[in-house]
Every structure is written in structure tokens, then in C-alpha cells.
């Protein structure tokens, strides 16, 4: 077997050279196809990564539960009872529920009046527990901070502003340390959120609300009932267990069936993330298919050149057969030749694609909404492997069919004297 392969390789090295021009054109076609495939896949990969970043804007692997009504009777109580958790239930959940990473409650005022100097705007105001900053991805811009335990305990009037809200109020001025009024009550600005990519939200984007300690919110507005509960599991796959734990804990307190999943309207972003992953995979497959078709055209070019080679070398093939070459020793070198063109073209395509991706890397995306959503084309190892696999297959096929014709050459026919 090995000897036979070695022989095929030797014969390949010794076979006649094809016309340079034709070979170069064919290799260029493959390089072009390979470049298209790689760029499309790189584009898809960039999009996927950017979508992941944007999705993470809300917070990774969290779930949001909105209180509702029971849908099943339980322990003699009828269905249709409203269930309304309160601020103290956050502490309860964090103590009782296993596999929980963190939990936060939200209380909300949908229309609060923010005033700084002469500027007045109407925006949402959120009262939140401390874990909110981390699990809902409210990262403070440098110079500021999110709410801290002392703020919560002392019910301080401090506020963390979304970056757009801060810009609306302060323009170019530095907001941190300044006082603003919210619903005529003065607050000290302790932090401003960094500019983050966020493509999903409830209520509104985080950039345009203000966050105060949930205790302060209670003191100012007298609100003890939670608008919603945000939970994050220790691992994404533990999310169902965490949601079940929340229902069990609150079900025991408020007396409803923990199996009643509709007591809370639940948005599980882990589940949604899995769906998004499928969609981006679909997009990538589609882009890959288009690229593969472009490459296929190059492959047809290789097959074409190989057919011409077989025709040109008919006598040579006949002579080799007369000298005792087995069919495999005729076809093997031809397949190897087709593979060589394909792989040289593929390597050139890879070099060009890498170069282009590196150039695109240097183009700034900030401020351009389209490129902010699309992200940057990214070449990854799986893309390189996919490209190599497609190239290899095309090369093999482009060699196989012409080689099969070569194997059918009738030596008696070709050696007939002129």
C-alpha cells in the first residue's frame, strides 16, 4: 500500500507539466473561490460574536420573572389569585434557592422627572438590589461606581445613570459627584454606565434609565412590591433548577403550586440564547454554502484543466499502460495533480483572506451603527478547517472524474502507429 502510494507520488512528480497560463488561471479561480468562502465565513463569525456581545449587554445567562396569577388550585385555594412578591423575598430567595449565583429585585417608576439645572427629562427610574449591577451588566464608567451595601443599608439618595440619560442631562459635563433631582428629590450621581451594546431589553434600554437602591426607592415611593425578579444561575444548565427553586420558595410562602409555571411570566435568556445560537449557525451555514458554490466554480475549472490534461496525455497514458502501469498508477497522479492546484489556490485564498481581515481589523467601527451590529470579520480555526475540507473534497472530485476517463484509455487505440 505504502509502496504504491510512493509510486503514485513519484509518477506525479514526473508527469508532464501543464501549460503555465492555464494552470495559473485555474489556481486563480480556486484562490478567488476560497477567498470568497473564507470572507463570508469570517463575516458570519464576526456577526455571531457581535450578536453574543450584544446579547450579553442585558447580562449573560439570566432569567427575569414577572409576578402574575396562579393558574391551578392549590391546597383548597382557587386558581386566579394574584401573587405579588415583595422586597424581603429577595433575601429569602438568595438564602433558599440552590445553584443560584445571584438574585436581584426591581421596583420601578415608569415616568420620573429628572432635572439638572434647567434640563428636564422624563425617564424610567429603577430601584434595584446590589446584585443588579453585576448580573444585569451595569458596569460603571471610570471615576464612578455602582450602588454599594452602605447605600442600601442607609437608604442613601444616590443614583447610577445610564449613559444616554447622563448625556441628556449633563451634555459634555462630568456627572459624577453632582446633584440632580428626581421627582423633586435630590440625588447624588455616583456612577454612569459605560457605553454597552445591548440588543434585547425589557421596559427599555439600560442606557436611558437611572438606578437607585431598592431601599431608597421604598422610602421615597412607599413601594414594597417587586416589578420583577432577576436571577442568574451558577451554570447556564442549572437555570431550570433555579427557576423551580424560586417557585418552590415563593410557593411555600404565598401558597401556590410550585409546578404552576405560569405564576411568573418568565424570560429565560439561556433558552433564548440557545435559539439565537441556532439562528447564527443557520446564517453561517448559508454564507458557507454561497462561498462553497463560488469555490465549486473554481473546482469545475480544475476538472476542466484535468480533462484537457488527460486528452493531451492520452499517448503518455497509453504508453504507461503498455509498460505495465496499473489503473491506479494512472489515476493516482492525476488526482494528486488536481489536489495540488486546488491546495495552492486554497493557500493563496487563505493568505489573501487573512490579509483582508487584518486590514478590516484596523478600520474603526465606533459610531457606525451598521458595523457596530455586524462586528468584525473573524477567521477562526473551525473556519480554516471547514475551508480545507471543502477544498479537499472539491480537489478530489475535480481529479477523480478526469482520472476515471484516463483509466478508460485503450492503450491499443493510442499506440497505433501514425
Amino acid at each position, binding site marked *: 500500500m505504502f509502496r504504491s502510494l510512493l509510486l503514485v507520488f513519484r509518477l506525479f512528480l*514526473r508527469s*508532464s507539466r501543464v501549460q503555465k497560463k492555464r494552470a495559473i488561471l485555474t489556481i486563480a479561480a480556486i484562490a478567488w473561490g476560497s477567498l470568497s468562502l473564507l470572507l463570508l465565513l469570517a463575516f458570519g463569525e464576526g456577526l455571531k460574536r457581535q450578536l453574543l456581545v450584544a446579547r450579553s449587554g442585558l447580562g449573560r445567562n439570566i432569567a427575569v420573572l414577572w409576578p402574575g396569577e396562579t393558574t391551578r388550585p392549590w391546597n383548597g385555594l382557587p386558581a386566579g389569585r394574584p401573587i405579588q412578591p415583595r422586597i424581603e423575598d429577595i433575601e429569602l430567595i438568595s438564602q433558599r434557592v440552590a445553584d443560584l449565583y445571584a438574585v436581584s429585585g426591581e421596583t420601578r417608576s415608569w415616568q420620573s422627572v429628572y432635572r439638572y439645572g434647567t434640563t428636564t427629562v422624563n425617564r424610567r427610574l429603577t430601584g434595584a438590589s446590589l446584585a443588579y449591577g453585576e448580573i444585569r451588566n451595569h458596569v460603571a464608567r471610570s471615576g464612578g461606581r455602582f450602588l454599594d451595601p452602605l447605600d442600601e443599608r442607609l437608604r442613601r439618595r444616590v443614583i447610577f445613570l445610564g449613559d444616554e440619560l447622563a448625556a441628556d442631562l449633563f451634555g459634555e459635563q462630568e456627572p459624577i459627584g453632582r446633584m440632580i433631582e428626581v421627582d423633586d428629590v435630590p440625588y447624588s450621581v455616583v456612577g454612569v454606565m459605560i457605553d454597552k451594546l445591548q440588543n434585547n431589553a425589557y421596559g427599555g434600554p439600560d442606557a436611558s434609565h437611572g438606578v437607585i437602591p431598592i431601599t431608597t426607592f421604598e422610602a421615597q415611593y412607599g413601594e414594597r412590591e417587586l416589578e420583577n425578579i432577576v436571577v442568574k444561575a451558577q451554570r447556564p444548565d442549572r437555570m431550570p433548577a433555579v427557576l423551580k427553586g424560586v417557585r418552590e420558595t415563593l410557593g411555600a410562602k404565598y401558597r401556590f403550586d410550585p409546578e404552576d409555571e405560569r405564576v411568573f411570566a418568565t424570560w429565560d435568556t439561556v433558552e433564548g440564547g440557545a435559539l439565537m445560537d441556532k439562528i447564527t449557525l443557520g446564517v453561517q451555514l448559508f454564507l458557507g454554502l454561497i462561498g462553497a458554490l463560488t469555490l465549486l466554480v473554481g473546482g469545475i475549472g480544475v476538472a476542466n484543466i484535468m480533462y484537457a490534461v488527460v486528452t493531451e496525455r492520452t499517448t*503518455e497514458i497509453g504508453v504507461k499502460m503498455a*509498460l*505495465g502501469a*496499473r*489503473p491506479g498508477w494512472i489515476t493516482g497522479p492525476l488526482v494528486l495533480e488536481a489536489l495540488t492546484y486546488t491546495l495552492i489556490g486554497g493557500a493563496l485564498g487563505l493568505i489573501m483572506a487573512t490579509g483582508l481581515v487584518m486590514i478590516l481589523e484596523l478600520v474603526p467601527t465606533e459610531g457606525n451603527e451598521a458595523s457596530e451590529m455586524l462586528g468584525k470579520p473573524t477567521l477562526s480555526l473551525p473556519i480554516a478547517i471547514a475551508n480545507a475540507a471543502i477544498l479537499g473534497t472539491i480537489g478530489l472530485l475535480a481529479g477523480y472524474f478526469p482520472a476515471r476517463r484516463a483509466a478508460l484509455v485503450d492503450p491499443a487505440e493510442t*499506440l497505433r*502507429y*501514425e
Partner: protein
Amino acid sequence: MSERGFELRSPAQGGDDVIRMERIRKVYDTGKIQIEALKGVDLQVCAGEFVAIVGPSGSGKSTLMNLIGCLDTPTSGTYELRGESVAGMNKEQLATIRNRRVGFVFQSFNLLPQISAFENVELPLLFGGHSTRARRERVAELLERVGLADRMEHKPTELSGGQMQRVAIARAVAMGPDILLADEPTGNLDSSSGQDIMSLFSDLWSRGHTIIVITHDSALAKRAERQIEIRDGKIN
């Protein structure tokens, strides 16, 4: 031939039949019409014989040569090459037979133009699976024997017709075949080169090779010990 890894088959001993053909028919089916190129040929060639097959064009000479050389299989009849029935062999087996048992010399030389004389002679040895070293020694010896020791690295285009045919003969005998099959070997050569080639055949014959020559050339045919005339697909 004492090199390691290389054993040259000794030419068949005198008296044994190398070729035994009985009632060989070959019909070419062109779709609409069927052409019967050979109409029942019987042929025996003994080891060490020098046979010339003569006949006008269209008589079936080439068809007969293709069958003898296992490039083609007969429509009917039996063919034994050194006692081994060739009928019913598959492509791989026929390739092996051609490699080991038959040496071809063509009118148009049929050397591969891109590779050197050395590499041309080396090809059948490569197919025969001989080691690099054995091949190198054998090719050098063969080219020396046909008087081209100083032309080994030349491409066929850099050689004269006579030299090309000598390379082709060296290639044909490289594997020590049972029969040397030559189709108009002097047809494309001037008379003095033709003389050289004829002498080379005589020389090979005297060394024990079995030679079958298909030719129009009466001078070459006369050198053979037996002339077989073929006409209209039959041996007279």
C-alpha cells in the same frame, strides 16, 4: 544480474512454447457494422525464436500484435502466454503481465517527452516495484548495452531517431520479458539507423530473447528465422 533485490527472469529455454494461440478471433463492433479483424488465427512461437509477421496494411497485423502484447483481449479463442491463459484476466492482471512478460517497441518510439532517457527506461522497473538502487544499476547497464551510456540524462527531443529507438529497446527489455514485441521498429528511421536497430535485434536474439517483429521492411523480415504472412485476418 547479481544485484540485491533484483532478479532478472532468464529468457525461456529453447523448445518451450512461449505463445500458443488457437482459433483466435477478434471482432470490432463499431455499432452498426462488425469488423472481423482476425478470423481464427493459430500461432505458436517457441522460446528463443525470431519471428517476423508480415502482411499488407489492414491485414490484421496490428490487431494480432495487440493481442499478443495483452493490450487487448480476443473475442474468442485461447491464448496462453508461457502456459498461462490470458483470457479472462482483469485490467490489473493484464497490466502485470505486460510489465513482466512483454516488451514493446513501437514505430514512433513512444518515449515520454518530458523525462530523460534514464527515466524512460526506469519506468517499467518502477512499475515492477524494484528498489531505487536496483533500478539505477539496471538502467545504467541497459543504456550502456545499447550504446547510450553518455546520453542518459538527455530528453528524447535531444536524441536522434535511432537513439530514441535504442532507448525504447532498452526500456522494452528492462524487465527481462518473455517476448520482445516490435511494431515496425525501423519504420520511422533512415536506412543506416534502421541497420543499427536491426543489428541490435539480432544481437538480442543471439542472447536468447524471443522476438516478434511486425514489419513491411523485407530486410528486417529476412533477419528473422521464420516469416509469418497474415492476409485478411488469417495466417497463410
